[in-house]
């Protein structure tokens, strides 16, 4: 069984897109030059991770199905004169790269995980098998009109953050993973967009992934 302790957690519940006032407020957390480049997802990621206190030896796991979808859409619109800025920001894991570059905090590793209905479970799995002492596990999506209307992007904008550590100090909860190759996929695997509510409510949860094993999340 693998166990990690949750020392920080934050969730920004799904909404269609950020309100102009919210966007303006979140931009104040960054210097003006960096803030101009940040679309809704990096702005939210920056906010929910503002107390992360990352260290040089930490790992980040970033879970996103569509990543910088607004940058992607703007890049698609820029043809036949492709925008270099939107190109680089659209490349996975652009949204979290933008935040971490703006804050200038180097790390051991950024492991971006992509998935669909089991994305949250996949990200937790990646975090649980990491040997690093601290794994900042973060996820989110941003609504972008064209991709969403064609079921090629997210319908909502949201983000979540779990600081997972191997020491028990200041634990607000814990996650256990029990490997079991006979495990079946459970219906209770939370979608990534339901994770902010899970975090904010402090709800306990158990679920399993086929062939991998059982996850349990409890809060102190």
């Amino acid at each position, binding site marked *: 069984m*693998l166990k990690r302790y949750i020392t920080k957690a934050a969730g920004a519940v799904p909404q269609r897109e950020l309100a102009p006032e919210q966007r303006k407020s979140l931009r104040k957390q960054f210097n003006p030059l960096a803030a101009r480049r940040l679309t809704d997802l990096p702005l939210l990621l920056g906010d929910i991770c503002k107390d992360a206190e990352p260290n040089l030896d930490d790992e980040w796991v970033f879970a996103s199905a569509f990543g910088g979808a607004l940058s992607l859409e703007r890049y698609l619109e820029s043809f036949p004169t492709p925008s270099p800025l939107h190109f680089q920001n659209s490349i996975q894991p652009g949204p979290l790269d933008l935040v971490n570059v703006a804050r200038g905090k180097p790390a051991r590793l950024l492991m971006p995980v992509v998935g669909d209905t089991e994305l949250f479970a996949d990200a937790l799995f990646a975090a649980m098998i990491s040997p690093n002492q601290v794994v900042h596990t973060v996820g989110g999506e941003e609504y972008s009109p064209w991709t969403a209307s064609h079921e*090629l992007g997210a319908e909502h904008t949201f983000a979540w953050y779990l600081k997972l550590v191997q020491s028990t100090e200041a634990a607000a909860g814990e996650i256990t993973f029990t490997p079991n190759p006979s495990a079946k996929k459970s219906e209770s695997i939370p979608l990534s967009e339901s994770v902010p509510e899970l975090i904010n409510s402090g709800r306990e949860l158990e679920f399993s992934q086929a062939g*991998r094993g059982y996850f349990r999340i409890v809060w102190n």
Partner: protein
Amino acid sequence: MPIYLHDCECLTALGKTQSTWSRLINGEVGLKPVPPLADSTETVPLALTGDLDDLNPPRWIDPVCELIQSITQYPWGDARHPIVITSSNFGIDQMLAAFQTQNTAYHGQATVTKAVGTIANRLGWGSNRLIISNACVSAQLGMIQAARLLEQRLADRVLVFSFDYLSRFVVGGFHALKILNEDFPQPYSERKSGAIGLGDGAAFAVFSNQPSPFCIEDAATHSEFKHMTGNDPSGAGFDSVLAPMTTIAKDRNFWVKGHGTGTLETGRLEAESVERNFPNAPLVSWKGSIGHTLGSCGLVELAITKAAFHHGLAPGNVAAPAPHCVGQVHSGNLDLNRFDGVILLSSAFGGAHAAHLMTHA
């Protein structure tokens, strides 16, 4: 804990592994001048396996599935045979086509999971899959996931699979960044301006705890987060992955397969870091021929490296004449009989770096 490399094959513009190795040994350049956009008057160096505009069905589906067919003896995707799929492109060619034509025929493989799902369905893969995408270090991160799965005894064998096929999306983007231009790449060469070339690439590698002649002894990663497309000008980012390997490599002979895309500043920083940490190790890059195969480069070049060890001869720093930014860049083919192993490097946007140390029994 070391892990072992078993089957490993690649596909590039120079063919499959054996063909790619052989043509690199002969100094052949796979890059050709191609217009970056349909109406461009200039050209950029691309190493293609087909027509850039061959979009429906996606030109990558058949060749990548055919590449994987050689290892169907394992039940990939079941509980003990997980798959790690990596890329920086996936089906982004389809996304651009869908947007530009508004034709839903392109939707089937336009997102990451749809592209992977199509391949998985074609090959009958199980659900035990993890998708990793971190630009041009994607494949090496996939190898790190494989090592973690094996270290935790969560797998008997792990398949790491990567594919990156060029499209107007990525060619247009790098051209807009101006590092993909009319010049052909000459990794580590002293010249007035830098240039990269891009290439199609796909590869797979099977890892396990069962010994093979190829042992991955160590891995190191670092994310600078200094600049989206640049590096710390001190070279500290490269040192962060190379310096930790000097201890395990002590008193043994290594060569270095560099990232070496052809950009001036990054190439110089990488080469100088190799010089600081491994002053006696020959340094080569193959991207002057096969181009930068993006998220798949780590796995594509691993397959070529494995072939090089098999033949006792590694391609030198192809298509990049002296003078070089450091003296240890090795132009000619490299006799591997005096080497214990190789250090494999990749770098990416965000200042991400990855290194693997592989030895050959």
